[in-house]
């Protein structure tokens, strides 16, 4: 840094350090580097060791007129940590602390620069897991997961990363060091926007995260389906049955074919004659760099060939957690899969996927080496639009590249599609492909980003998707970083006035109901009854409580639409709404706000009253086994009321009854309102307890007039 150096802050202006911090893993940047176009070089790299040093670095950068690019492990694939010429790269990896672990509250404190796998190893050595397992876990940091809103391979059980974040410390140029969310943070309403802000609002330094005990049982199995439509139907039914599988992972026919995923691995296949011969040819001078140039230069032909060769697709399904709970869910889950046309392929495909789940990242570089480029794109939509979105994106990409897809993050209300493509050409070809693909996503009603962040690559498309709601983000950015010191040009850019299309019609299979944000619980219940469904989470208020005082699987709403400055906005086009920060709560405060809330079909129910000594304490204990009851409250007589829905309701109820012990009397199922509004954690024997979440008992906050 040019002016007086900051005492104690480790700084380097060495060419090597600046070079290493100049490029993240955006494949466009890799293509540039490979074709000899270097990334813009930063002016220096700094390694703060605590929030105070981060603050000092931001102050000094502002004084020097430089921008700051936060850099963890640089694993972002959207250009969020891409170099900016003359910038200060703030490397977070010296923020290395882990702990304390609170085994009672199931939380861990962790600094932002900790490598993901190192945190998981640390937790597992103590009998816990974060449950967040992205394929980048070896090459990403915890702060990066928060900044770009990552999602792991077991997200359908453990949740996506923001479901695990209870609170964080962020250092902002405008407000200094700020505690956000729990415990005790005064700026809880900022949490949704700081998660996913990719360093634009400040630098995340410390996080409080939810943890779970290491699962005692893991069940994985493969199923073959004739086509994507049948498999998607099975996935939807599985997710809407409240069974909470840990893995629901569908490979489309091309991906299934290329990966050979439904066939047992051939013994000695690696050493087959043809492979050996091809490897030798590749070693000839000049051959390796051109091996894929011809096939990838004819994407239309190659796509056609693979379409003809492909037949059937593989669905990997997994359950994990408490052994009794896994056993309770399996009969219902396997029935659903069988009835939907799934052919049971046994444990092998699931085991193989699990064993090689981090290997996918090693598969991209051989494509570059051989004269092509490879990239991935993750989008999402409600169930009724998933297939249309899948076809639309394939049609848009096929003229440019070989395309395949898998669906690996699923929710009761929809799914993410993860496209992989390989093409040939320079940045112009690559950029055209992305522009066409993103246009197709928006036209098909999907969200342009699910868990890879927005960065620079998707900033334009994400800003179109956010439309006038981007004002919520800009508003906060002006407060937290008025001089645009932190990572400018990422996530949200100016795209001019945008009016969102009318919200797409929801179908019964989407498992959602659109309601006014102002509507009462009674009115919403009536609406649900009229449509023959039940509200999944009957929160008193449509928006429910803040993220850190509800259980991670209780998502109050998906889509939110409203009018901002006279223009219609629709956020949450797909589950999770990860095109940048989550602005849905902000949008819900605007005119005519409507939210899509999750519903469940009517069907099997189980409910019981348990006469136990400390009912709220017992309720917390139930949640910590991994049970996810639809009803969990204490009635007027002081009895614990527990209820389950769906095809495994009775089996799960039996497990709950056994765990509770004492006198358990089965009663008619009757959903109870879930408290909203400002809730705070309290002691389980506090007389003011109104609900529980994974982290403990909750009471209403005393609001000062």
């Amino acid at each position: 840094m040019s002016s007086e150096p900051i005492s104690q802050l480790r700084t380097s202006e060495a060419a090597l350090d600046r070079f290493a911090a100049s490029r993240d893993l955006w494949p466009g940047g890799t293509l540039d580097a490979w074709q000899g176009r270097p990334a813009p070089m930063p002016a220096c790299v700094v390694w703060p060791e605590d929030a105070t040093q981060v603050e000092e670095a931001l102050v000094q950068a502002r004084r020097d007129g430089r921008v700051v690019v936060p850099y963890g492990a640089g694993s972002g694939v959207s250009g969020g940590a891409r170099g900016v010429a003359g910038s200060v790269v703030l490397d977070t990896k010296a923020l290395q602390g882990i702990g304390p672990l609170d085994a009672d509250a199931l939380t861990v404190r962790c600094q932002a620069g900790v490598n993901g796998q190192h945190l998981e190893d640390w937790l597992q050595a103590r009998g816990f897991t974060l449950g967040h397992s992205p394929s980048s876990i070896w090459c990403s940091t915890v702060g990066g997961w928060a900044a770009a809103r990552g999602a792991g391979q077991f997200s359908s059980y453990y949740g996506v990363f923001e479901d695990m974040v209870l609170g964080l410390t962020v250092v902002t140029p405008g407000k200094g060091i700020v505690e956000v969310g729990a415990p005790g943070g005064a700026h809880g309403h900022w949490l949704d926007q700081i998660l996913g802000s990719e360093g634009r609002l400040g630098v995340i330094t410390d996080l409080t995260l939810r943890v779970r005990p290491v699962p005692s049982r893991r069940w994985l199995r493969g199923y073959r389906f004739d086509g994507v439509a049948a498999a998607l139907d099975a996935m939807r039914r599985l997710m809407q049955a409240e069974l909470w599988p840990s893995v629901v992972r569908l490979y489309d026919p091309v991906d299934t074919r290329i990966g050979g995923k439904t066939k047992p691995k051939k013994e000695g296949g690696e050493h087959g004659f043809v492979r050996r011969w091809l490897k030798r040819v590749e070693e000839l001078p000049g051959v390796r760099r051109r091996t894929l140039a011809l096939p990838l230069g004819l994407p239309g032909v190659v796509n056609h060939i693979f379409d003809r060769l492909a037949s059937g697709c593989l669905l990997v399904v997994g359950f994990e957690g408490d052994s009794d709970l896994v056993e309770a869910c399996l009969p219902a889950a396997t029935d659903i899969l069988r009835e939907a046309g799934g052919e049971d392929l046994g444990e092998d495909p699931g085991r193989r996927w699990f064993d090689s789940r981090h290997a996918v990242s090693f598969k991209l570089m051989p494509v570059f080496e051989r004269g092509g480029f490879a990239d991935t794109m993750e989008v999402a939509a409600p169930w009724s639009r998933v297939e249309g979105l899948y076809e639309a994106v394939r049609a848009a990409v096929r003229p440019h590249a070989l395309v395949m897809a898998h669906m690996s993050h699923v929710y009761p209300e929809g799914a993410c599609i993860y496209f992989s493509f390989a093409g040939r050409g320079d940045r112009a070809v690559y950029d055209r492909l992305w522009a066409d693909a993103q246009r197709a996503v928006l036209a098909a009603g999907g969200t342009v980003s699910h868990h890879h962040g927005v960065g620079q690559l998707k900033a334009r498309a994400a800003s179109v998707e956010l439309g006038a709601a981007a004002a919520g983000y800009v508003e906060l950015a002006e407060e937290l970083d008025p001089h645009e010191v932190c990572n400018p040009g990422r996530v949200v850019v100016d795209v001019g006035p945008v009016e969102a299309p009318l919200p797409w019609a929801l179908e019964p299979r989407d498992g959602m109901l659109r309601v006014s944000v102002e509507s009462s619980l009674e009115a919403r219940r009536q609406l649900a009854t009229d449509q023959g469904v039940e509200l999944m989470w009957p929160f008193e208020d449509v928006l429910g409580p803040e993220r850190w005082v509800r259980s991670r699987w209780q998502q109050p709403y998906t889509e939110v639409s409203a009018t901002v400055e006279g223009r219609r906005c629709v956020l949450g086009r797909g589950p999770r709404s990860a095109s940048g920060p989550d602005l849905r709560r902000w949008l819900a405060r605007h005119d005519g706000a409507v939210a899509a809330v999750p519903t469940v079909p009517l069907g099997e129910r189980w409910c019981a009253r348990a006469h136990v000594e400390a009912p709220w304490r017992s309720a917390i204990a139930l949640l910590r086994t991994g049970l996810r009851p639809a009803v969990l409250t204490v009635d007027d007589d002081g009895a614990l009321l527990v209820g389950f829905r769906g095809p495994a309701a009775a089996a799960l109820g039996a497990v709950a009854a056994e765990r509770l012990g004492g006198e358990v009397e089965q009663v008619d199922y009757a959903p109870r309102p879930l408290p909203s509004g400002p809730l705070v954690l309290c002691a389980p024997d506090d007389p003011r307890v109104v609900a529980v979440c994974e982290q403990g008992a909750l009471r209403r906050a005393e609001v000062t007039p």
Partner: protein
Amino acid sequence: MKVIERCSLCPRLCRTACPVATGAAREAAVPAQIASAVLAWRQGRLPSEAVRDAVTSCVDCGACQDLCHLHVPLPEALSTLRRELGTAPPPPKLVDPEPGAVLLVVTRDEESLLPRYQEAVAAAIGEQVGRWRAPENLGEGSLEHRAARRHLDDVRAMAGGRRVVTAHRGVSRVLGLAGVRCVELWDLVGLTPPVGCGDPAAPIACCGGRRPFARQHEQDAARMARHWVAREGPCSGLDSRCAAHLRGAGAQATSLVEAWLEEVAT
């Protein structure tokens, strides 16, 4: 070149295994980033000073190759580069060993344990044991120097066909390359081999005490030691040099030899 190209295109998954990248928190020390720097240097985009800095940031523990699904032999490629660039220090001047049927190599970190160490080994073997002082761990850090071959010949000549006992992985490596009959203390007295210094089973494969890295990247080596101490707490059963390095960072660290001598004494 193929190795360097392949690693420079990789998503840098090896960072999770690399003790330097982790402990020193230095992006430029990530093995795949070192490969990128080498490629950029070959393309004329980085100065040679930078690439010398990069290739000497590797402690040659092999953890990156063990983790890599493609098993790309980057450590070997970097070793070759270090030879080409002449980054290794010259071999130290060897000291004549004492007379004895068996020689016990004593490194600088082990000298404070004498004469107990020498007596305990003699008692365990039942033969007269001569001491062989080993400056710079018998030249462990010089194995990539162009004079290494001649140095190894000198080591062999000085050993003179005698059995040599050591409790040091680096010394053991030098003796092995010199073709000297080497007996490792842990095998001799039935102990678990020391952790660290390239042991893939160790929680962190290197604490930064390894030569010549510890000399060339003194601050990074100190950071690595502090990181190890913070994550692992008190450590025991270490190589003597690791124990000394960690003690320098404030850790409670016990070497394998110290623990053994304690056991022998009681």
